[in-house]
């Protein structure tokens, strides 16, 4: 329980003259459910992009299980076990639900091009098992009935769930959830949080989630880092965060702006 799985060492992201994230340092331990919170524009998504290789940090390094991720392409990082969802839902809109998830399982496919062309037994059986595995995953979120519907036709909440299913299909060590509850009402959010806790234990996962809304995170996260203007201002258990003056100030300041 105590081994460090993911570590960001002093990562900085600079866009032109603007430092979106400044020397951020944090760790996520194996099996933990960690949170990254902060007001709008604090740089949370930028952190995710650096962790998953979409951006290369201007300075600093990310480590997974002690291995440096610098210079790796996003797909390579995904193969190593980091997966994610997107804040502004990036499903494969033109494809159906099943295909969306199957694509994420591509890295575990056992057959080659020749098997495909000759339609070998191996091709057929592994396609079969792939599909049943994916259906099982969809089942967790009650999406299996919609397997053949276009992803774009799902209601918003289900699209978010589908993103999680898709991410799970990569067989990750750690899943990064970018505002998974955005746009959901209270009961939906509650239900989602329960599911997240459930999949964590079922798949032996580590979870790092971004939430804009502080209260939601408090309930389930074991460790929380707070970001403001690209700088980590606080880190610790929910109780620590709740009582931090800096955090309150950061959030209040934002409300003024809004």
């Amino acid at each position: 329980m105590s081994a460090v799985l993911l570590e960001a060492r002093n990562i900085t992201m600079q866009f032109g003259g603007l430092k979106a994230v400044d020397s951020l340092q944090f760790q996520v331990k194996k099996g933990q459910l960690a949170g990254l919170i902060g007001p709008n524009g604090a740089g949370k998504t930028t952190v995710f992009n650096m962790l998953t290789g979409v951006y290369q940090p201007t300075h600093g390094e990310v480590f997974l299980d002690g291995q440096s991720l610098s210079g790796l392409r996003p797909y390579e990082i995904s193969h190593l076990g980091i997966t994610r969802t997107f804040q502004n839902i990036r499903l494969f809109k033109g494809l159906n639900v099943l295909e969306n998830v199957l694509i994420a399982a591509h890295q575990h496919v056992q057959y080659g091009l020749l098997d495909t062309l000759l339609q070998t037994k191996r091709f057929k059986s592994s396609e079969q098992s792939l599909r049943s595995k994916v259906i099982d995953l969809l089942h967790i979120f009650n999406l299996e009935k919609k397997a053949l519907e276009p992803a774009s036709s799902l209601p918003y909440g289900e699209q978010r769930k589908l993103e999680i299913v898709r991410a799970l299909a990569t067989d990750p060590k750690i899943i990064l959830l970018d505002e998974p509850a955005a746009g959901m009402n209270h009961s939906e959010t509650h239900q989602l949080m329960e599911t997240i806790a459930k999949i964590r234990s079922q798949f032996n996962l580590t979870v790092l989630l971004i939430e804009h809304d502080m209260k939601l995170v408090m309930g389930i996260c074991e460790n929380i880092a707070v970001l403001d203007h690209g700088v980590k201002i606080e880190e610790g258990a929910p109780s620590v965060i709740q009582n931090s003056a800096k955090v309150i100030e950061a959030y209040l300041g934002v409300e003024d702006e809004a």
Partner: protein
Amino acid sequence: MHDFVQHIINGISLGSIYALIALGYTMVYGILKMINFAHSDVYMIGAFAAYYVARWLGIEAQPGIASLLMLILVSMLACGFLGFLIERFAYRPLRKAPKLNILITAIGVSLFLQYSGQVVFGADPKVFPEVMTDYVLLTFGPVELRSFDLTVLGVSLVAMLCLEFLIKKTKVGRAMRAVSSNALVASMLGVNTDKIIAFTFVVGSSLAGVGSVLVGMKYPKIDPLMGMMIGLKAFVAAVLGGIGNIGGAVLGALIMGLSEEMVVAYLSSTYRDAFAFGILIVILIFKPAGLLGKYSVEKV
């Protein structure tokens, strides 16, 4: 040495021809993010409009600056009007369609103009009237600088500055930039996007009109397919400089003109076009948005 200087002059002169046409491509691309493949054929129509009007008015008998300006005006009007029609009837219905569809429509319009041009004007080349006489401005030994070369360069630079001013400093320009960055938001803010886009097309196309008269004056042979080759080169020049960037178009065009000239002079005339595209490919691979273009990081 004097050959080298002559090559530089030739190259700049050729480059400024490309620049005049490249400006039209880049202008439309900058606002609409579409390759207006028909631009080079609008240019062709401009040349023919000027040709017929000049013959009708008997302008050849009285060459001079007034006749030139008059023809440029005619050609600009014809091209602008044609640009308006093309936008209204071919591109506007496709505003929300996938990019490939718009590209194919543009190619369709281009083919339509080329082939109906062959039917209407005839396929044989026409001789563009001599509106002004070319003369030597300066000589250094065998090196010559001619008035047409300077005129074309001057006009393309002035056109560039006018466009820069139009886009950066005027109210219409602000609206154009708004449409370019986000058409939906722009329309919510009260910008009449249809009008702005039509205006962009009219301006871009009338630039082709200016180009066609100047080119017709310098190279007095026009035919319905005259836009094909020069259009492709100008377009490549616009991409080279960073399509959507006004200054980039002129820079790209001058680089194209000079490099074509130098390839012919010092490497191999037969591989000239291959080199032109080779340069483009190398630049795009190392600088994917062209020389002056800004590479936008996709927001995730």
